């Protein structure tokens, strides 16, 4: 079984997704239970992945390899390292909650909605597990299809505009990546990422490939080890963008009137910590002459990524809970929600505190690590990153003050009903996860240790031909 574990995690939800699609809207309940069953099963299958993983080594594990497109030397090769594993777990975990969250909220085209999410889940696992660049690209691009449909069909009032915009921009970025991949394939004759990492590249080549990758995904750290010198040279760009994301977006989030937008902006600010932490290595070496702090930054970035998935997800769900009742995402129609929804209010305050990086919640761990690491690189990096302590608390708590606390704002708020069992269960599971990661992050760090150290070594290596 473990032999095909990764394939199972990819194809079980995809197959299940198509099966759900077939059900159509006639058997809505069956579709719900079927997709929940598949999501739970997929999550259950991801647990042996964690249990069987050896975190002390950087080697890929659970490897599967079959020839795929022989003409291009592209293989169907899968494997996970300490970086991919936590992200796969996050994917399978959140999909269960997503299926449950849409339960009686999505009443139109329910089966299609659930099917799209299951297919998306499988493709995402594929992105994390692919060891072949072509396969990676395949999953990466395929992901756009269900995402496109989800936004376009079940999105808000401007969903069509949003869908086209989303598609064009992600696709545009991906095309650059495709060009870079093909270029490297022409030089190596191989699409395996490991082979690309061995490929010697000149400074110019590395610079261009780096920018192409940056355009495609802003960050998928392991890919940047293909261009260590290009990364060294251009890391300032990523760091500058990250710090702008933290400070600039912090201010922008402050003035949002739409709760969902506010959380989306705050989410960008949090992702700024991910990219910041990942690219500190070069500056740390330049500033201190040692490498201590580089792995701390990457570890912090990873923890932040996982935590962001949980906390931002929870915050969005909280907005969803209110939207389902009042049908508004604006802040102004609320006020004093805790009076009528005390349980919900308690959850919202907890997740807000996690969003503001409170210790004992997952939101603290990554931010703290990245700030410590960024001081090693440059005092001002730490200074700019540290402003999140103030800005993050400001926009989050101001939101809480206006929405949750205060006297009952109006008749809508007075008529609110507290969480039902399903909503309570979803938020409670997320709350436990947020607290667990905040109080006991060691298991996550232990899984990643080998891989982050290896990553730092690769980032700090050089590919330039010796003169």
């Amino acid at each position, binding site marked *: 079984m473990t032999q095909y574990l990764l394939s199972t995690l990819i194809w079980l939800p995809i197959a299940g997704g198509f099966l759900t699609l077939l059900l159509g809207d006639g058997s809505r309940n069956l579709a719900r239970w079927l997709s929940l069953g598949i999501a739970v099963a997929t999550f259950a299958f991801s647990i042996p992945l964690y249990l069987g993983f050896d975190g002390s080594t950087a080697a890929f594990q659970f490897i599967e390899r079959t020839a795929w497109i022989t003409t291009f030397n592209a293989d169907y090769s899968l494997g996970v390292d300490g970086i991919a594993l936590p992200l796969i777990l996050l994917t399978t975990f959140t999909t269960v909650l997503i299926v449950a969250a849409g339960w009686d909220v999505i009443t139109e085209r329910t089966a299609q909605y659930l099917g799209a999410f299951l297919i998306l889940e499988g493709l995402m696992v594929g992105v994390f597990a692919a060891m072949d660049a072509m396969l990676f690209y395949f999953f990466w691009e395929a992901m756009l299809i269900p995402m496109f449909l989800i936004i376009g069909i079940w999105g808000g009032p401007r969903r069509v505009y949003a869908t086209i*915009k989303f598609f*064009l*921009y992600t696709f545009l970025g991906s095309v650059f990546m495709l060009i870079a991949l093909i270029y490297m394939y022409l030089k190596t004759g191989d699409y395996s990422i490991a082979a690309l990492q061995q490929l010697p590249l000149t400074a110019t080549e590395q610079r261009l490939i780096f920018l192409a990758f940056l355009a495609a995904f802003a960050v998928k750290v392991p890919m940047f080890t293909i261009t260590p010198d290009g990364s060294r040279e251009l890391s300032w760009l990523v760091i500058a963008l990250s710090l702008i994301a933290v400070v*600039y977006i912090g*201010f*922008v*989030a*402050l*003035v*949002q009137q739409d709760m969902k937008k506010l959380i989306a902006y705050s989410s960008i600010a949090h992702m700024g910590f991910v990219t910041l932490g990942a690219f500190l290595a070069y500056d740390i070496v330049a500033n*201190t002459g040692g490498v*201590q*702090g*580089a*792995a*701390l930054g990457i*570890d*912090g970035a990873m923890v932040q990524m996982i935590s962001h998935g949980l906390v931002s997800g929870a915050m969005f769900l909280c907005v969803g809970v209110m939207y389902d009742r009042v049908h508004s995402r604006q802040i102004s129609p609320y006020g*004093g929600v*805790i*009076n009528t929804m005390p349980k919900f209010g308690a959850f919202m*305050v907890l997740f807000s*505190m996690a969003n503001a990086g*409170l*210790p*004992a919640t997952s939101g*603290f*761990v990554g931010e*703290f*690590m990245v*700030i*410590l*690491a960024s*001081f*090693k690189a440059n*005092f*001002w990096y*730490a*200074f700019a990153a*540290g*402003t999140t*302590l*103030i800005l993050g*608390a*400001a926009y989050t*708590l*101001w939101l809480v*003050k206006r929405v*949750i*606390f*205060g*006297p*009952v704002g109006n008749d809508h708020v007075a008529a609110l009903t507290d969480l039902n069992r399903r909503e309570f269960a979803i938020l409670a599971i997320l709350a436990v996860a947020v607290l667990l990661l905040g*109080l*006991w*992050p*060691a298991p996550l*760090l232990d899984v990643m*240790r080998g891989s*982050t150290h290896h990553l730092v070594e690769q980032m700090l290596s050089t590919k330039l031909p010796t003169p």
Partner: protein
Amino acid sequence: MNPNLLLAIPLLPLAAAVISGLFGRLIGRTASATLTIAGVLGALVLSLKVFQQLAFEGVPSYNDTVYTWLVSDGIRMQVGFLVDQLTVLMMVVVTFVSLCVHVYTIGYMHDDAGYQRFFSYISLFTFAMLMLVMSNNFMQLFFGWEAVGVVSYLLIGFWYTRPSATFANMKAFLVNRVGDFGFVLGIAGIVYFTGSLDYADAFAAAPSMATKTLSVMPGAAWPALTVICICLFIGAMGKSAQMPLHVWLPDSMEGPTPISALIHAATMVTAGIFMVARMSPLFELSETALSTVLVIGATTALFMGFLGIVSNDIKRVVAYSTLSQLGYMTVALGVSGYSVAIFHLMTHAFFKALLFLAAGAVIIAMHHEQDMRKMGGLRHRMPVTYWTSLIGALALIGTPFFSGFYSKDALIEAVAESHRVGAGYAYFCVLGGVFITALYTFRMIFMTFHGQERLDHHAKAHFHDVGWDMKAPLVALAIPSLLIGFFTVQPVLFGGWFGDAIQVLEHNDVIAHIGHHFQGPVAFALHGPMGAPFWLALGGVVTAWLFFLKNPSWAAAWESRLSGLHTVLVNKYYFDWFNENVLARASRGLGSVLWKAGDQAVIDGTLVNGSAKLVGWLAGVTRRVQTGYLYSYALWMVVGLAVLLAWFLLSAH
């Protein structure tokens, strides 16, 4: 020391808090109260046991890890305890005051629907505060630091339907976050140099850090330890409400009074003082940082006292007094008198908690009236509250033999002994502060308990003295407010109680200096009338008596004569005005500009939609090229070939 015993001290209140928080409705009011009180009582008993072991049984101090939170890049982030003389003193003070407040809460919150929630919060606070003081590393210190902050947030906003309360709690959290911003940078600086979060490693590396520099700006290298210490102190300024980060403390009075006593007087706000004392091996090596501490503390001590004179809200008077007293402690830190700072912290914890709880008793008796102008003559109606308040007030102004006398007099003498930059200014401030303290304290006592009754009809109709559940804690706190200084000044301050827990360089050791003249607590107290502070305090009391009891019309007359000054004081030096109208407005304005101009116009408008328009325009141009006529295509082919050829030929050279 047994680590399980130490672990039980914070975990007992935590367990009680979790149970009564999550299952409060299930187990009911009485069970919640009983459970949390038992938890805190257990913590107190165990803390006393640890105290006994350290003080009398010669057990060495404890410093070890109990739980590894995470390891990354060789940096261990852990939960661990450092229990020495400094820690155990804080543990006893925290758990004792917390117990008094728990008991008092039974009566104070009796009619409140959030009874269980309140008990849960104050027990959670006790846990967080214990984690803070017992920590042996910066990670856990920061955890405790933030955790007490968040419980304070929840408690200030306990009555969440009041807009003023939800504003105050947000303000408190945000102002504290400004301090924490500095605090985190300080911690990061220590990790930068030592690669570790443990106190022991930081202290061992202190001498080497003192010789290093941080290149903060190109060409400007700052002394590393000074930067680190000032960053850490910014954290202390937030938590211990030093100017200009003091603005949240008066507003925190929106919370129920028991927490004003516990959190905003006795314990949490002293965390900054404790932290600097804990970090004495670092601060000692930076004269610049200590002078900064000194000047900020002195300014807070004097100028916050003035505000107490003009406030008519009984709780706010006590709050301004707390700000001023925290300034005194900070001054003590600034002159390297860490031990006297902690000593004053301890005596202050008792008498200030007492004054707050007494104020709370008055408020409850008056049916939620806080305006002193509507009180007066209450000493007949509530004698126990009156006499305990009087003890607290006499301790606060430094009456000989009362606990506050020993700590405050020693503190002022320590400032007089110091030759540090800023010590002269600080001496002026702390002496002036003595007069001011006596003035506002006895103004409060006279306006509340003496003179004519000015109760309005509502208060008169509903007046009822509080029960013994609220009076007993007052008595329990009055005893140490009276006696603790007398019995502990010798061992704690001059007997070397703190040992290695506090480190002072020999030429900075002002406490040792004044210790040479110390001849026991009786002689010390009898020597009181020989010094200026005694007469200044007396002057303050007499002035208060003249202006607020004997001739209240004088106060009104002076108020109009000095109306300019009065306006400045009533507006609290315009700090709030500045923060709300300049800082907050500018932030929101910046956010709007960045959003509208940056995000919407440039990124969305120009980049995103602009590029879409560009594509549209290009398509329009190329559409014209795609005429469908064969000759046209042939022409373009020729043009293209010519360009390619030209490029080929030119690049060949």
